[in-house]
C-alpha cells in the first residue's frame, strides 16, 4: 500500500485566553511556520487542496471555515474542506485525498478559541437536542460526570490514582513550550480541589484553552520535496457510539476499541502492548486517561487504575506533552497530540523527548462522554 507522510507540524502556543489575536492571526503565524519548515507553495506545483478544522459554535458563525480561507491559502480558487469533528479525523480525510490520487499534498490547519464563549459548557450544551436534553442542562461536563462515576466504579479507579494523573500531566507540561497550564501540584491539591460535577473535581478538568495546529501532509513520492525525515501515517480508524447517553454503556469505551482495532489492523500491529511506545490520549477529564488507555488495548479491561499505579504511563510514554489536562482546546486536542507525536518521532521534542520512540498512537474524541472516537498510528 502507498504511504502518506506528515512532513511538518506547527503548534501555536496554548493559552487560556489569547485575547490579543483573532484566530485568523493565529493561523497566519502557523502558515508562515509550516512554509518556513518546508518551503511549500500554493498552486499547480504545490498545495491545490486545503483542509481545515473549526467549530461553528465556538466561532459563532455557520460555515466557520469561510472566515479563515485567506489565511490557509484557500481564498483564491483552491479546494477546501472542513472537518467538523475533532481535528485528528482530518488526518484520515487528508489520507483519503492523497491515497485516492486526488491530491499529493494537503495543507491542514485547525483552530479553536474556547475563550470566545463566556462558558464552553454553553457551547457543548448546544450539542444536545433543543427541546429535551439541552433544556435539562446536559453538556459535555455533566455527560463526563455520568461516565466518570460509571467507569470509576467498574474499574475501581481511586481519587489517588486520578490525582497522580493530573500531577504527572503538569510535570510534563512544564517541559513543553506549547503547553498551557504548568503550575505544579501535589496530589492533595487535586484530591481536595472543589467539586465541579461530582465525581469530577476542578483539577480533574482540562483548563479553558485557545490554540491552533497546522500540518503539511504528502504522498510518499512528494514527501521528500518537503522534508528529509517524513513521519508515516500507518493507521487510522474512527467509530461512533450512540447519541443518547441512556442507550450507551458509558463505563466501556466500545467505540474506541473498534476505532483502535481498525487503526492497528491498517498499521499491521497485532500486539499493541508490544509495538506501541508513545501515546497521546485526549484526556479532557482525569478519569479518561486510564479509560482511553483501556480502549486502546494497552492494558486489560478494569486495569486502568493499576496501569496508572504500577507500570503504564512511563512504559508507554503517555502524554509527555502534558496532554489535555495541561490545556488544549476541545476541537483540536487530538490534532495537538499528532503534532506532539510527530516531534517525538523525529527526536525534536526537546526537554520532553522520549528515547527510542518509533510507533506512536494518538487518540481523540468528539461529542459527549467520548461518543465519537478516533485513533491514528504514526511511525518513523
Amino acid at each position, binding site marked *: 500500500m502507498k504511504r502518506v507522510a506528515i512532513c511538518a507540524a506547527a503548534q501555536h502556543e496554548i493559552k487560556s485566553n489569547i485575547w*490579543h*489575536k483573532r484566530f*485568523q*492571526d493565529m493561523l497566519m503565524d502557523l*502558515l508562515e511556520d509550516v512554509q518556513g519548515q518546508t518551503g511549500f507553495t500554493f498552486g499547480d506545483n504545490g498545495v491545490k487542496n486545503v483542509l481545515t478544522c473549526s467549530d461553528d459554535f465556538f466561532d459563532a458563525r455557520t460555515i466557520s471555515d469561510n472566515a479563515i480561507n*485567506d489565511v490557509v491559502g484557500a481564498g483564491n480558487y483552491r479546494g477546501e474542506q472542513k472537518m467538523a469533528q475533532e481535528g485528528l479525523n482530518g488526518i484520515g480525510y487528508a489520507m483519503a485525498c492523497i491515497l485516492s490520487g486526488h491530491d499529493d499534498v494537503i495543507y491542514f490547519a485547525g483552530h479553536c*478559541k474556547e475563550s470566545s*464563549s463566556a462558558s464552553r459548557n454553553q457551547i457543548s450544551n448546544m450539542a444536545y437536542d*433543543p427541546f429535551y436534553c439541552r433544556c435539562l442542562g446536559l453538556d459535555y461536563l455533566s455527560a463526563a460526570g455520568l461516565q466518570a462515576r460509571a467507569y470509576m466504579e467498574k474499574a475501581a479507579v481511586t481519587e489517588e490514582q486520578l490525582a497522580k494523573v493530573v500531577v504527572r500531566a503538569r510535570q510534563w507540561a512544564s517541559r513543553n513550550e506549547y503547553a498551557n497550564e504548568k503550575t505544579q501540584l501535589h496530589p492533595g491539591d487535586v484530591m481536595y480541589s472543589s467539586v465541579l460535577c461530582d465525581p469530577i473535581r476542578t483539577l480533574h478538568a482540562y483548563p479553558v484553552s485557545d490554540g491552533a495546529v497546522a500540518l503539511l501532509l504528502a504522498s510518499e513520492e512528494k514527501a521528500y520535496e518537503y522534508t528529509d525525515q517524513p513521519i508515516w501515517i500507518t493507521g487510522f480508524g474512527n467509530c461512533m457510539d450512540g447519541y443518547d447517553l441512556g442507550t450507551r454503556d458509558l463505563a466501556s469505551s466500545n467505540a474506541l476499541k473498534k476505532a483502535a482495532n481498525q487503526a492497528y489492523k491498517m498499521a499491521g500491529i497485532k500486539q499493541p502492548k508490544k509495538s506501541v511506545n508513545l501515546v497521546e490520549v485526549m484526556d479532557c477529564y482525569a478519569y479518561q486517561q486510564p479509560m482511553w488507555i483501556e480502549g486502546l488495548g494497552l492494558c486489560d479491561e478494569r486495569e486502568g487504575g493499576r496501569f496508572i499505579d504500577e507500570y503504564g504511563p512511563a512504559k508507554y510514554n503517555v502524554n509527555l506533552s502534558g496532554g489535555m489536562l495541561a490545556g488544549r482546546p476541545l476541537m483540536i486536542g487530538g490534532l495537538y497530540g499528532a503534532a506532539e507525536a510527530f516531534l517525538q518521532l523525529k527526536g525534536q521534542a526537546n526537554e520532553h523527548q522520549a528515547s527510542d520512540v518509533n510507533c506512536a498512537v494518538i487518540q481523540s474524541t468528539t461529542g459527549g462522554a467520548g461518543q465519537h472516537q478516533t485513533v491514528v498510528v504514526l511511525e518513523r
Partner: protein
Amino acid sequence: MAENIQKIAAEELISIQVINSIDYSFSTGPIMGKWFQGLKEKKFYATKCPSCGRTMTPPRGCCALCVVRSEDFVEVGPKGTVVNYDIAYYASPDPLTGKVRKTPYSALFVMLDGSARDIFAHEIKDDDIPKLKRGVRVRPVWNEVRTGSIHDLLYFEIDG
C-alpha cells in the same frame, strides 16, 4: 381521510419555539483593532498587500490572492464611488428579538478614494435610495458618539 390526518397533525405534531443564546466576546486583534480605532477618529484604514499592491477594507492581515502577510496600513476615503448595490424590501427578522428592521434598505459597495482593487460594503441613507446609481459619489455620515464599533459609521450619503 386527508382531513383526519390534518386534524391529528394539528393536535400531535407540536413545534416548540426555542431561542438559543450564548454570551461571547471576540478579540479584534492588531489588524481589526486598528480599523475600529480609525472609525472612532472618522478614518478608514486599509491594509496594502506587499506583493500585488491591492488594498483591503476593512483591513485583513493576509492577502487572499497572494497568500502573504499584509500589515502595512494606508488611509483611504473618506469619500468614494458606488460600484454596486441592491435594495432589500423583505428583511430577515432578528432571531433573538423577532424584530424586523425598517425597509427598504441598501447593501452598498463603495470604492473608497485611494483604495486599489477593493470595495467596502456598507449602506446608503434611506432618503438617498431613490437616487442610487452606479458611479455616484458618496461621503460617510458619522455617529456623534463613537466607541470603536461598526456603528460609528451610520451610513453613506450622496455627495453634492
